[in-house]
C-alpha cells in the first residue's frame, strides 16, 4: 500500500512535466510575442525586457552556455545546469518553486499572483458544485435503484439524463435568462448584484455541479442495481437481515466504490468546466481570468493557468485513488 502510494505520488511529476512540454511547445508555435501592444514597444525596450525575463535564451537547451561553463572549468553539475539554462527549463524550475513568470498583458503582475488572488472565488464555486453533486447525486441514484421502475426512478433518471447530456454552459445561459426575467437582475456580468440575492455562488455552483451530479446519479443507480443482484446480497437476505441493514451494510459501500473512482475525472470536469461558468456568471475566479487571457492571447497566463489546472486535476485523481484503497479491502491488500 505504501509503495503504491509513493509510486502514485511520483507519477504526478512526469505527467505534469509532459503537460508543461506540450503547452510550452504549442504556445511558442503561436504567432505574436509577449510585447505586442497596440502601441508598439521600441525594439530596444523589447530587447531589455527579453533579457530581463530570460526570453533571449534558447527555447529548450543551451549547449553554448554548457560549453562556456566547461571552458570555465566548472563541474559536471554546473555544466548540466548551464545546458538547461533555456526558456523551457527555467520556466519549469520556476514553476516548481511556484513562480509562473510575468503576465504578458497585465504589466507588472506575476501569473501566480493573479491566480492566487482569483483562486478563492473559484474554490468557493467548486466547493458548492462538489457538495451539490455528491449530496444530491448519490441519494438520488440510490433512491432510483431502490425504487426501480417507479416514478422516483424515472424522475431521477430523467434529471440525470438531462444533466449528463445538456452542456452546463447552455444550462447556465438559460438559467441566467430565467433569473433575469424572474428577478429583474440585469443579466450582464456583475457579481455584486448576484451577491445581493444571496445566490452569488449557489446558482453558478449548482449549474456547474449539475453535469457531475447527473453523472454520479447515473453511476450510483447503475452500481446499486449491479450490487443488488450480487450473490452476497442474497446471502445477506437469507440471513434474515432487514432491508435497511442489507442496504446500509451490504449494498452501499460496494456500490460506492465505482462512484468514488469516477470522482477524480468528475472533479477534473468541474475544474475545467468552471471557466465557462465563471465567465458566464461573472464569478471573479481563475476561470474568468483564463477566458479573458485567451481572448487577449496572454500566453504566459494561459500556460500558467493550464499547469495550475493540471495540478488540481492530478491532485484530485490522487485523492480519489487513495480513498479507493480505503473503501475496497481487495485493493488495500494487493498493493
Amino acid at each position, binding site marked *: 500500500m505504501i509503495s503504491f502510494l509513493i509510486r502514485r505520488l511520483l507519477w504526478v511529476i512526469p505527467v505534469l512535466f509532459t503537460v508543461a512540454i506540450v503547452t510550452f511547445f504549442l504556445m511558442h508555435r503561436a504567432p505574436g510575442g509577449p510585447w505586442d501592444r497596440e502601441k508598439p514597444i521600441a525594439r530596444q525596450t523589447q530587447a531589455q525586457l527579453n533579457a530581463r525575463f530570460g526570453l533571449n535564451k534558447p527555447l529548450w537547451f543551451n549547449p553554448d552556455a554548457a560549453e562556456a561553463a566547461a571552458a570555465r572549468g566548472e563541474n559536471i553539475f554546473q555544466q548540466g545546469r548551464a545546458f538547461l539554462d533555456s526558456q523551457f527549463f527555467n520556466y519549469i524550475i520556476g514553476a516548481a518553486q511556484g513562480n509562473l513568470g510575468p503576465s504578458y498583458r497585465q504589466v507588472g503582475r506575476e501569473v501566480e499572483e493573479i491566480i492566487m488572488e482569483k483562486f478563492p472565488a473559484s474554490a468557493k464555486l467548486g466547493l458548492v458544485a462538489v457538495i451539490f453533486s455528491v449530496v444530491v447525486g448519490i441519494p438520488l441514484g440510490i433512491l432510483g435503484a431502490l425504487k426501480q*421502475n417507479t416514478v422516483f426512478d424515472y424522475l431521477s433518471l430523467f434529471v440525470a439524463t438531462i444533466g449528463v447530456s445538456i452542456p452546463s454552459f447552455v444550462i447556465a445561459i438559460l438559467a441566467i435568462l430565467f433569473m433575469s426575467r424572474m428577478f429583474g437582475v440585469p443579466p450582464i456580468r456583475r457579481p455584486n448584484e448576484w451577491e445581493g440575492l444571496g445566490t452569488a455562488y449557489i446558482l453558478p455552483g449548482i449549474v456547474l455541479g449539475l453535469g457531475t451530479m447527473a453523472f454520479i446519479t447515473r453511476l450510483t443507480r447503475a452500481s446499486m442495481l449491479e450490487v*443488488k*443482484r*450480487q*450473490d*452476497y446480497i*442474497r*446471502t*445477506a*437476505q*437469507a*440471513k*434474515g*437481515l*432487514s*432491508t435497511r*441493514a442489507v442496504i446500509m*451494510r*451490504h449494498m452501499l*459501500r*460496494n456500490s460506492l*466504490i465505482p462512484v468514488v473512482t469516477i470522482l477524480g475525472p468528475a472533479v477534473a470536469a468541474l475544474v475545467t468546466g468552471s471557466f465557462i461558468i465563471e465567465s458566464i456568471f461573472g464569478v471573479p475566479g481563475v476561470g474568468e481570468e483564463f477566458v479573458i487571457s485567451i481572448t487577449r492571447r496572454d500566453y504566459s497566463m494561459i500556460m500558467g493557468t493550464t499547469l495550475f489546472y493540471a495540478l488540481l486535476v492530478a491532485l484530485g485523481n490522487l485523492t480519489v485513488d487513495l480513498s479507493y484503497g480505503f*473503501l*475496497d*479491502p*481487495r485493493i488495500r*491488500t494487493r498493493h
Partner: protein
Amino acid sequence: MAPLLEVKDLKTYFYTQDGVVRAVDGVSFSVNRGETLGIVGESGSGKSVTSLSIMRLIPSPPGRIVGGEILFDGENLLDLDEDEMRKIRGRRISMIFQDPMTSLNPVLTIGRQMTEPLQLHLNMSASQARKRAIELLSMVGIPSPERRLDDYPHQFSGGMRQRVMIAMAISCNPELLIADEPTTALDVTIQAQILELINRLKNELDTAVIIITHDLGVVAGMADKVQVMYAGRVVEEAPTDELYHNPRMPYTIGLLDSIPRLDEHRGARLTPIRGLPPDLIDLPPICPFSPRCDFVQESCLNVVPPLRRVGPNHRAACLFEVTREQHQQAAAKAAAEGVETIDIAKKVTAAQEPAILRSR
C-alpha cells in the same frame, strides 16, 4: 408426526419480456425433521427456484410465487409478512449457495459477516457473537479462527469460503438447511470434504437438509430420499436406494446411464441424453421430456404425465412402465439406426435459469 416442511403444488413464474417462464410449476414434496432430501435436475429444471421460493427470496419482479403452499412446522410461509419471514430466514431455515467466491461480501470482514445473524437472531452482544463465531469456524475446520476472523473473503480459498458459508448457515442452529449446489464451484477433492462436513454437522445438530444438485453422485452419499426435477416439475421421487436401483422415469434412467462407472468394463459406451431441456415459455401440454425420450409414443404428446405410484414410496411421471434394461436396449437401437441427435449449439434456449435469476 407432521413433516417439518411440506410444499404443496408450488408454482413460481417469471414474467419476462419474452413471456411467462413457468420455472416451478406444481411441485409438491415434504421433508421430515432430521431427514435429508436430494433434489436433482439439470440447470433450468427449477430446483434453485424451488429453494429460493421456500426462503421467499425470489427476485420480484420478474418472479412471483403464484400458487401453492409452503408449510413450515405447520405454518404457511406464503402467508407471513416480510418481518415474520425475516425471523425465519437464517434462524430456522438457512441456506448455502453455489458459488462461495461471490456469496460473501467482499468489503466486510468474515467476522463481521458471521456475527451478523448471531447478534440479530440470538441477541448476542458483539463479544459473545465473536466468541461464538470463532467456535463455529473451528467447527467447520478453519485453522486458527481467531486470526482469520478479521480477514476479508478474498484472503480465503474457495473451499475455505464455503466452510465459512456453512458456519454462517448453521450459526443459529436452524431446523432446515438448504444447500443449493454447495460443491459445484469447487475442486473435486474439496467437494468431498465439504459434503462430509455437511453430513457431519447434520448428524451433530440433527438438522433437516435439502441438498440441491445436478450430480446424482452427490445425492447418493447423503440423501435419504431423492426427487428428480425436469422442466419445473417433479418427474420422479423415491427413497435413494430405490431410485438408484429401480428408476422408472426415462429421464432419471438417462441421468443414471450418463454417469461413468468404474465397475463397468472399458469400452462400454456412455449413453448421453439427447438434446437440451425445453424452453419453459409456452410449454405445450405434453410430456416435457418427450423430445428427448427414446420411448416417446403418441400418447406422450397428448397430456402432461402426472406423478403416479409405481412402488412403495415411489412415484414417477411417465405413462409407461419403462425399466432401465428396456431403456438401454432402446437407446442402443436408436444409436444403431443413426437417429439424429439434436444439434446442441443451435438449440441454446433463451430462458435458462441463471439468466432469469440475474435479470432482477
